[in-house]
C-alpha cells in the first residue's frame, strides 16, 4: 500500500532495508544461537547515518521524528528483532535527554548518539518495579557536588554495551512517583557495574543485563530535568517510544508473512503447491490483513505524535498492543504454514516466533497498555 512517504523517508527505508539485507540477515541465525551482541552491525548502521535519524539537525542528526524511527525499526526488524531492539533501546535511552535535558546535556550527548559513537540505554525496571513503575527502590542522594546512587536495575536492554544510561531513581522516596528523578550514568562512573547477561528465549542478539549502582557518584549536572519530574519524563518517553515497539511487530510480521508465502508456493503436497489449498490461503490472507491493519495504525499513530498532538498515550498504547499481538499471531501461523520445517532451527520462522513474544511484554506489558487505554477512555467520557 502507498503510505505517501516523502523522498527522504523513502531514502531512510531503503537504507535500513539494505542494512537488513546486507548486514543482518546473513548473520542473524548465528547471533541468535551464540547470544551475541551485534556490535559490528551497529557500527554499519552508524556509518549509514541511521542513528542520526531522530536526532535534531542542530546536534548532527537528520531531524526526523517518531515516524522516521518507526520506518527504520520496521525494516531492521524484518531482518532481526534482536538487532532492531538494540537500536530501539538506544533511542529509548536518549529520549529523556531529548525531552527534558538541558541545552548543555543535549550538546554533550546528542552528537555522539547521532554519529553512533556512543549508545544509550534506559534504566527503569527493577526486581520490584516492573508494570508498577512506582516500585522503584534505587535512590539518589545529593552529597556536595555529586549525586550518590544506590540500587539495581534489572533486564536493561543494551546493558553493558551502551555508554550512556538514563537511570530512574528516587530523590524523595516519601513522595512516591513525585519523588522520582532521571540521571545520566556513564559507563565507567565510580560505583557503576553490570550484572550477568541474561539468557533469553528470543531477541538473543540484544544484550540484557543488570545495572548495579553501589555508592555510584556522578556530577551534580547529570540530573535530567528538574528534581521530582522523573516519572513525567518517563511517561512522555514511553508515549513516543511505544510506536517503535509496534513497528518491530510490523517488520517481524512482514518477515514471517514473506517466509510463509514463499514456502507455500514451493511446497508441494497431494501434487499441488500448498498455497492452492484454501485452508492455507485463508491463513495467509488473515496474516496479511492483520499485518496491514497494524502497519496503518502504527504509521498513523507516529504521524499523530509528530504532529505535536496533545493526547498521545491512548493511541500509542493501542498501536503497541495491536501490532505486537499481530506479530505473535502471524509468526505462530507462519510456523504452522511451514509445518515441521517451521519448527526446525534451520528455517527462520521459529526464531521469529520466539522473538515475537517479547513484544507483548517489554516497554509495558500488553495488559498495562490496555489499562492505559481504558483509563484514557474513562477520562475522555467523563466530560
Amino acid at each position, binding site marked *: 500500500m502507498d503510505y505517501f512517504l516523502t523522498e527522504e523517508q523513502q*531514502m531512510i527505508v531503503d*537504507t535500513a532495508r539494505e542494512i537488513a539485507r546486507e548486514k543482518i540477515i546473513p548473520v542473524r541465525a548465528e547471533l541468535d544461537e551464540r547470544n551475541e551482541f551485534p556490535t559490528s552491525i551497529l557500527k554499519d548502521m552508524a556509518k*549509514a*547515518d541511521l542513528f*542520526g535519524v531522530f536526532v535534531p539537525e542542530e546536534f548532527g542528526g*537528520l531531524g526526523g521524528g517518531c515516524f522516521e524511527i518507526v520506518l527504520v525499526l520496521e525494516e531492521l526488524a524484518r531482518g532481526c528483532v534482536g538487532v532492531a531492539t538494540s537500536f530501539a533501546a538506544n533511542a529509548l535511552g536518549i529520549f529523556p535527554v531529548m525531552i527534558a535535558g538541558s541545552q548543555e546535556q543535549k550538546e554533550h550527548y546528542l552528537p555522539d548518539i547521532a554519529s553512533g559513537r556512543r549508545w544509550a540505554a534506559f534504566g527503569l525496571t527493577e526486581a520490584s518495579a516492573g508494570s508498577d513503575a512506582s516500585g522503584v527502590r534505587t535512590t539518589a542522594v545529593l552529597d556536595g557536588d555529586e549525586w550518590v546512587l544506590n540500587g539495581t536495575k534489572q533486564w536493561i536492554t543494551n546493558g553493558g554495551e551502551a555508554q550512556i544510561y538514563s537511570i530512574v531513581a528516587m530523590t524523595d522516596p516519601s513522595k512516591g512517583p513525585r519523588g522520582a528523578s532521571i540521571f545520566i550514568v556513564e559507563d565507567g562512573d565510580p560505583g557503576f557495574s553490570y550484572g550477568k547477561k541474561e539468557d533469553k528465549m528470543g531477541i538473543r542478539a540484544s544484550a540484557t543485563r543488570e545495572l548495579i549502582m553501589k555508592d555510584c557518584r556522578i556530577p551534580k549536572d547529570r540530573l535530567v530535568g528538574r528534581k521530582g519530574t522523573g516519572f513525567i519524563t518517563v511517561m512522555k518517553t514511553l508515549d513516543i517510544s511505544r510506536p517503535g515497539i509496534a513497528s518491530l511487530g510490523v517488520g517481524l510480521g512482514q518477515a514471517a508473512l514473506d517466509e510463509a508465502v514463499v514456502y507455500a508456493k514451493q511446497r508441494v503436497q497431494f501434487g499441488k503447491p500448498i498455497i492452492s489449498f484454501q485452508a492455507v490461503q485463508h491463513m495467509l490472507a488473515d496474516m496479511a490483513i492483520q499485518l496491514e491493519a497494524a502497519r496503518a495504525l502504527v504509521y498513523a499513530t507516529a504521524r499523530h505524535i509528530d504532529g505535536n498532538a496533545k493526547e498521545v498515550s491512548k493511541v500509542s498504547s493501542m498501536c503497541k498492543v495491536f501490532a505486537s499481538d499481530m506479530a505473535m499471531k502471524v509468526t505462530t501461523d507462519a510456523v504452522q504454514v511451514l509445518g515441521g520445517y517451521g519448527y526446525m532451527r534451520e528455517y527462520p520462522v521459529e526464531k521469529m516466533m520466539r522473538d515475537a513474544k517479547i513484544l507483548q511484554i517489554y516497554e509495558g506489558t500488553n495488559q498495562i497498555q490496555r489499562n492505559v487505554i481504558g483509563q484514557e477512555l474513562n477520562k475522555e467520557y467523563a466530560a
Partner: protein
Amino acid sequence: MDIIVCIKQVPDTKDVRLDPETNTLAREGVESIMNPFDRHALEEAVRIKEELGGTVIALSMGPPQAEAVLREAISCGADEGVLVSDRAFAGADTWATSYTLARAVVTLGNFDLILCGKQAIDGDTAQVGPGMASQLKLPYVTCVQKLRTMDETGLVVERMMDDGYDVVRLPLPALLTVVKDINEPRVPSLKGKMRAKKAEIRILHAADIGAEEQCIGLAGSPTKVVSVFTPKPRGNRTVFSGTPAEQVEQLFAQLRDIL
C-alpha cells in the same frame, strides 16, 4: 591523500544473457549496477580518506546514464564524481579506454593514488587498471587483498596469488587494483545519499581531456572482434562419489577404459 577511484557501470550479471541470434549481450531491461569490484576500491579509498584525510574522486567513462554510479559513489563517501563521456569514445577496447581514462586523470591534476577494481564483471578482462598505469607511467600492483601500511612516501600491499600472497612495497603516486577480500563495503549513508542527489557531476568530453582522435573509440582500439559465438558443451561430466580411495579407483577404471 588524494585518491581517484575508477568506477564502471555494468549490467547486473544476475540478469545477463546472450542473444542467441546476434551473440551480443541482451541488455534490454537489465538493471545497471556499480561494478562490484569497484565498490571495494571505493570503500578502500574512503577508508584511507577517513584515516589520513584528503579527497576521493570517483571517475567513470561511459554513456550519460553512467552518472548514476557516480552519484552512488558519492553516497558511499566520494567527494566528487567525474564522468568521461563522448560519442567519440564509442567502440573503445581496453587500450583505448585506458588511454581515455589516463587523459582524464591528467586533466584532473594532482593525485597520490588511483584505485580500480580487479576487473569489470561484463568484460572480465582486468586490463584497464594496468593499461592506465602504463599510460601514466605509474607503478602498479593488481589483485591487492590488503593495504598493510601507507604514508606519504609509499605503501606496502598484499597481492593475492593462487597459493598465498606477495608483499609488495611501492612508491606514490601509484595504481592498485583490488579484489573483494580487501574490505566489506558499507551501505550508502543517508547524508551521503542527500549529498549525492544534489551533487553536480562534472562531465569531461574528448576535447576537455585533450584526447587525440586516433587514440580513442574504435579508431584507437587495436582489438578487433572477429566473431562471437557460444561454445558447444564439452561432453559429459562424471562426478565420482564414495571415499577418496573409492573415487580414485573409479577414476582409474575409467581412464583404463579410455586408454
